[in-house]
């Protein structure tokens, strides 16, 4: 099949439909995909926020208390609330995707996807528990 086409009556022009820049608004699943990708922005924000916390602890107790006070201000609270939504969204979508990407064989048979997903959530609970125990001594 030749690549160059002479546009005569016998080689009619093909219709090429361009994709709009707003393709991600045209379908719900595309929009959710972009939201999932956008959650990475809030991942970066949490890194910044944690580093600010570390720096405040490095400086002095006063600095640490100031950081806690600042973190209670309405704008920061709102930002962190929104970030929490996106971080949780990131976690859920990542754990949803993991079984599709990882095929685990134990012995001879394949571990079902649901178990891989459950293992990830178990890891989340364990990691969260460890953090709480370390920080609050609970």
């Amino acid at each position, binding site marked *: 099949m030749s690549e160059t086409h002479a546009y005569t009556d016998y080689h009619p022009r093909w219709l090429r439909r361009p994709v709009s820049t707003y393709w991600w608004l045209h379908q719900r699943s595309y929009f959710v995909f972009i939201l999932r*990708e956008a959650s*990475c922005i809030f991942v*970066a924000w949490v890194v910044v926020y944690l580093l600010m916390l570390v720096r405040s*602890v490095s400086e002095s107790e006063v600095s640490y*208390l100031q950081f806690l006070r600042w*973190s209670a201000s309405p704008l920061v609270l709102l930002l962190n609330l929104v970030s*929490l939504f996106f971080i949780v969204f*990131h976690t859920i979508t990542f754990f949803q995707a993991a079984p599709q990407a990882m095929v685990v064989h134990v012995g001879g048979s394949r571990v079902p996807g649901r178990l891989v997903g459950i293992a990830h959530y178990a890891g989340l609970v364990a*990691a969260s528990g460890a953090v709480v125990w*370390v920080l609050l001594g609970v």
Partner: protein
Amino acid sequence: MLFSAGGVVSALLMPILLVLFGLAFPLGWLQPPSYEHLRAVLSHPLTRLVLFGLCMLSLFHWAHRFRHTLYDGLQIKHLNEVIAALCYGGAIVGSATAAYLLWQVP
């Protein structure tokens, strides 16, 4: 691989950290750790290592994802090299900052 590692560590550690330091402590739902306790936790080499890993991997996860979203989603193709430099460069700078700050904990 950095991307998926970053995705996993951020998915495992960030929810609880954000719930605690972003909401629970500021809003007084839970008593924040005392300065001495937190300083002791942060100065522990294992904590520094874990936090550095979390920051570095998460930043590279962000860099890779953000760059691709701009390229595919918003179709900003003509600035491809600039965006790649800003994203990965930002991740490198951020990781270096994290290393420096974590090193500095007394």
